[in-house]
């Protein structure tokens, strides 16, 4: 396999344990998503289902810069974000199958999942709505005077929604501790970036509002992590928002029902062969003698077991009781 080396391999400061963690976390997302695709094909998952395969290094690299109490919010392509912040594979998969064991008791589905415990604020189905919501989460941290940061993820498609720019303006005006993470996978559903804007970069649009930012190689988890640490440090220090435009690629269609006629099979194959983020870390582990083939096989097996277990759980978890139709519409008591 021919791999293009990343611009600069910054492995010197990375420990074996870190590399293994990134490998494991990215592999979990990929295998989970493959399984979700399979269950969708079997009719066990309904509706829309947007897979994260190919983009794993983005969220794993960002999470490497997070600390307890940091918040995250994203779009409907959200399974990877949930796994990366420590939510259980079982609960995510069971939500995909619409069962009572899911994070939203089966009432949210693929696009609408949340975890108060892991500070994951969704899972939002309306393109770009999560951007001001994310700034609002950061507003709350600033209001309370802590040093937590919010990661607000959105895609290159969402970057053309007006509310993103209203949010940029207020986030910078109020120095909100929010990292805007643009996951630029280069296709807004079927529309390539070239066909939707004459901007050459998306992070550059922040300049108009005084927000600093940069473009990052999103197929290199170490590069993402390094950029994330810089962005987070700026936000924690009270120096307002930061934009990371993370260049990535999704191997699968926009959703399960995407005939993928807007790009060639060769283009996809080339990315998989030359730039795959998981293969990259695998190479680093092997060539750096941090792990043997057998070590990695053991991890592969461990991940496969987690994913299979989640699928079994998601099939066996009962459908929500019919009474659930009528719960959680209103919160009951008023505040003290």
């Amino acid at each position, binding site marked *: 396999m021919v791999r293009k080396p990343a611009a600069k391999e910054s492995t010197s400061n990375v420990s074996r344990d870190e590399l293994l963690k990134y490998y494991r976390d990215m592999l979990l997302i990929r295998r989970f998503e493959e399984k979700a695709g399979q269950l969708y094909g*079997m009719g066990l998952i309904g509706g829309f289902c947007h897979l994260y395969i190919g983009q794993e290094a983005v969220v794993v690299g960002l999470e490497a810069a997070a600390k307890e109490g940091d918040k995250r919010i994203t779009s409907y392509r959200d399974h990877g974000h949930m796994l990366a912040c420590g939510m259980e594979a079982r609960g995510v998969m069971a939500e995909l199958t619409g069962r009572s064991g899911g994070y939203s008791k089966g009432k949210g589905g693929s696009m609408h999942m949340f975890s108060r415990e892991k500070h994951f604020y969704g899972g939002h189905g309306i393109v770009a709505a999560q951007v001001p919501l994310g700034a609002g989460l950061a507003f709350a941290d600033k209001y309370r005077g802590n040093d937590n940061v919010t990661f607000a993820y959105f895609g290159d498609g969402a970057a053309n929604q007006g509310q993103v720019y209203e949010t940029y303006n207020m986030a910078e005006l109020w120095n909100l501790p929010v990292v805007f993470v643009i996951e630029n996978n280069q296709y807004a559903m079927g529309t390539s970036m070239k066909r939707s804007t004459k901007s050459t970069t998306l992070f550059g649009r922040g300049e108009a509002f005084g927000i600093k930012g940069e473009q990052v190689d999103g197929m290199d988890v170490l590069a993402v992590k390094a950029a994330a640490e810089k962005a987070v440090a700026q936000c924690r220090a009270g120096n307002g928002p930061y934009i990371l435009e993370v260049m990535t690629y999704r191997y699968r269609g926009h959703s399960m029902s995407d005939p993928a006629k807007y790009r060639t099979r060769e283009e996809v194959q080339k990315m998989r062969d030359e730039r795959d983020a998981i293969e990259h870390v695998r190479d680093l582990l092997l060539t750096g003698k941090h792990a043997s083939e057998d070590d990695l096989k053991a991890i592969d097996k461990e991940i496969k077991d987690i994913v299979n277990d989640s699928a079994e759980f998601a099939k066996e978890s009962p459908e929500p009781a019919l009474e659930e139709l009528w719960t959680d519409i209103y919160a009951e008591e008023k505040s003290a």
Partner: protein
Amino acid sequence: MATEILMPALSPTMEEGTLAKWLVKEGDTVKSGDILAEIETDKATMEFEAVDEGIVGKLLIAEGTQGVKVNTPIAVLVEEGESADAAPAAKAEPTPAAAEAPAAAPAQAAAPAPAPVVDQSPDWPEGTPMKTMTVREALREAMEEEMTRDDTVFLMGEEVGEYQGAYKISQGLLDKFGPRRVVDTPISEIGFAGIGTGAAMAGLRPIVEFMTFNFAMQAMDHIINSAAKTLYMSGGQMGAPMVFRGPNGAAARVAAQHSQDYAAWFAQIPGLKVVMPYSAADAKGLLKQAIRDNNPVVFLENEILYGRSFEVPDLEDFTIPFGKAKVVRQGRDVTLVSFGIGMTHALEAAEKLAGEGIEAEVIDLRTLRPIDYATVIASVQKTNRCVTVEEGFPVCSIGNHLSAYIMENAFDYLDAPVINCTGKDVPMPYAANLEKHALITSDEVVAAVKKVTYR
């Protein structure tokens, strides 16, 4: 172990498809992500990828086959040195939930009428001293008291701070609470409504002021999709305890884009609470209640009412519960149901009718979600006639909904059809005479009452 590859569902609605083309042949080695076949659905031709690794042992369905049902085995994948015949006999997969016939849950007829258990207890204790106050002052006091009581409550919106409020509702709040809690925003309704909702999801209690609700249309997505639905979509884990407030409805001579009553729009949404007060006491008690409520509350004020004075209880703290209408005037001949500025016309009409010997009972709904049906039904059971009064458009109005509810739950008590008095079914015109004609008037209410009382 050999595994069967099943005909996949490739869209939310696909039940069967055409196996257009095989891209592998028997004996080929495949790995996860390789394209196995092209499958045609009713919408598109799609590539179907392998999930597992293995060798294609057998192709079970010939290419070109139409009408292949989802979940039919189409090929067998084997491991090295294994025969395709080792494939398990097509075992009956548990029927996937999605394909199951919907559980027999016959659409229930609308919930039976609650026996009208009417709560008309006084809103404050008998003998409470009263003070005269405008609606504007009442709203300001409500916010001031709640912001003093709870540090998580803050106000955001256009001109709420340094300008002291476009309609002076927030006058003095910046001086008292500072810019941390009285946040001036740029003119960015969808942006600040979204930021406010996010802050609420994180546990703060924002009061988001729209300079008028006409501008809230820009923020509709966050009010409905983000604020109202999150509690449900998260299985009860998090919601948006917040208030969206501002003037709603026609002011005077500001024409179509600035003159609209959104009561019926918001009242339709499960997950929202909707309040539309008329008097200053209700404005204060209900706004305090709204700020304390753990749900998103749409609080519809009215510019024309801001300057009107009413008696307000002189109490350190009082709230008015949601879902409790107020019988403002007792009567035996007809029930007038209204809310917000509609109450002006209902009360005026009742006064005129009294002069002609018709005693109207006037009910102020005060909250539109939840609605106090019991008080309405109990009154209709007494008067046997009902006229609703509101400023909004006639189609799918609050009055339409009440008419349907009364018909379902008190049909036998009605001596006449319910009449809905509403604004006219036209965009608000600018010309003074046309505007006057577009709005509901007390004379129209009087005429409607005469019709239902056959006078």
